[in-house]
């Protein structure tokens, strides 16, 4: 009995010390203070500008009555359909094109290199000027597209931005135009990191052309492609510029995405920010699983893009 208590007495401070050492993580003396001081700015930024607004948003959107109002809004339902179409086409067309084009840009020669320099222009130019330009190009009376159709083929083109489906298609087109170069460059880097020896070995085994792509390149790129699809989906869910500038949400609020609906229509036009928060938050059931999967993927892959 006595011996136990003595042992306990002896251990308690030791344990406290190990706990303290555990917290300090092997850093000695003032080093720990320095290490903490170095991370404080980021932690402050994170709490002030991520946790606080996110918490505020969750609190604003916590009233169930809001959702009844949101779901009974026909424009909101249209927006959900738009978002689904935008996701289905925007993400897949963009990434599939990028996958093919990254193969094209693997071709040797000065011509491909020069073309790549031009090809990345849509990404290098800020989104705003190009989307405004596309908006004007699609003008039914004075835009470049219809002028071209009229002068070259003698056809009167449709007024692109006055019908819901044409306008939505135009917005998707602009998005694909803007972002394909970016994903192409990343997939190109992915392809370049595949060692040449693997291709040599495959060639000995008789894999050329399409087989080479199907059995060598694609399996090696598959994980990257998946991560990029998830990332592109998340970024597209939060897309604002392509719809806002190309269609402006019109005609008659029929081409909104969640972000433009929440910010432009609900907050600025109707003056009901709660409604906007609720509309944006209705994407959480899709967003949260995506974020969880993506975070696991990115962490385990050690961001090997």
């Amino acid at each position, binding site marked *: 009995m006595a011996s136990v208590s003595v042992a306990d007495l002896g251990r308690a401070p030791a344990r406290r010390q190990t706990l303290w050492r555990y917290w300090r993580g092997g850093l000695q003396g003032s080093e720990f203070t320095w290490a903490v001081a170095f991370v404080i700015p*980021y932690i402050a930024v994170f709490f002030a500008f991520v946790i606080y607004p996110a918490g*505020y948003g969750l609190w604003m959107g916590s009233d169930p009555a809001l959702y009844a109002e949101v779901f009974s809004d026909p424009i909101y339902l249209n927006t959900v359909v738009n978002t689904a179409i935008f996701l289905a086409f925007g993400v897949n067309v963009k990434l599939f094109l990028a996958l093919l084009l990254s193969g094209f840009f693997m071709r040797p020669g000065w011509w491909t290199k020069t073309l790549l320099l031009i090809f990345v222009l849509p990404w290098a130019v800020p989104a705003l000027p190009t989307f*405004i330009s596309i908006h004007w190009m699609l003008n039914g009376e004075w835009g470049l597209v219809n002028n071209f159709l009229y*002068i070259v083929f003698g056809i009167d083109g449709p007024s692109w931005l006055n019908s819901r489906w044409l306008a939505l298609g135009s917005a998707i087109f602009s998005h694909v135009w803007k972002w394909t170069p970016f994903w192409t460059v990343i997939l190109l880097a992915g392809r370049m990191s595949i060692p040449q020896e693997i291709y040599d070995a495959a060639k000995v085994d008789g894999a050329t052309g399409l087989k080479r792509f199907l059995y060598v390149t694609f399996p090696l790129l598959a994980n990257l492609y998946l991560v990029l699809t998830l*990332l592109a989906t998340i970024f597209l869910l939060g897309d604002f510029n392509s719809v806002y500038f190309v269609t402006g949400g019109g005609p008659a609020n029929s081409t909104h995405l969640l*972000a433009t609906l*929440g910010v432009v229509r609900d907050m600025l036009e109707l003056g009901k920010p709660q409604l906007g928060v609720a509309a944006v938050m209705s994407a959480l059931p899709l967003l949260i699983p995506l974020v969880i999967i993506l975070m696991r993927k990115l962490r385990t892959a050690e961001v090997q893009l």
Partner: protein
Amino acid sequence: MTTITADTRPVAAASARPAERMRRVARRWRYLSNAGAALVSFVLLVWTIAPLYNMVMVAFETEGDVFSDHLWPSPASPESFWVVLTEGHWYLEAFWHQFGNSVFLAAMVTLLVLVIGTLTSFSVGRMRIRNGWLITNAALLTYVIPASFLAIPFYLIMNRYGLQNNPWSVIAVLVTFATPYAIFIFQEYGRSIPLELDESARIDGASPFQIYYKIYLPLMAPALVAVGTYALLLAWNEYLYQFLLLSNDRSMTVAVALGKFLNSDVAPWNYMMATAIIYAIPPIATYYMFRRRMSSGLTMGGVKG
């Protein structure tokens, strides 16, 4: 002549050595693939250039010329650029002031992202602060949340503290959304710098801050350039938060002014496109100057749209 060809052809066909035939097949295949590549290149060029061409074309039109159908203005005049540069239209009264705002914003964001990013990754990656993974995860989480989803609560918070039309509110958001990428890249890049350097400096009596400032930062220079370029472009190109938070003529940036242009009823399109081109030139120049550094950064770390 004809007799000779008539003579040689059967000989060639008769010989039909496999090597010869294979070479011929290979040559034909190469022609086909070159023709295909030329076609793809052509389509890519038109696809990439069209909206940019439209931008330049409209900028070179004269005031009344915008509303006519042509593919290139007959009297092309650089007058609209001159009008923009001399602030010669009432929409453009504060153009240079707004340009200055954009520069200030981008410079501050870049500086803060570099400082906060390096401090954090030094503490987490080099000093190995206990529970540093929490910070990495917080950064990862911020990285995968679409920025536009926090726009409404952030706008309301900034209004509540009277920070609308204050550039620092926008700087805070942009730093928040650019720092996570910086932390990834710095941590990834930092792995290539041997920890023994820090160890030996510590034995020589250097304080953590000296190690950070005299050893870590100089060795990180390439990553600093990559991330700095990224942050600069992000801040210059961003629209949504600048539009929400900077609304009066003195505080707004060029991006906001362009958006306002578009929403006005009688937008002078040629001036608008000239403004857009002038606005797009600094980021394009920066991008092409640091392209190599940036794409090495992209392959090393994550990606952000």
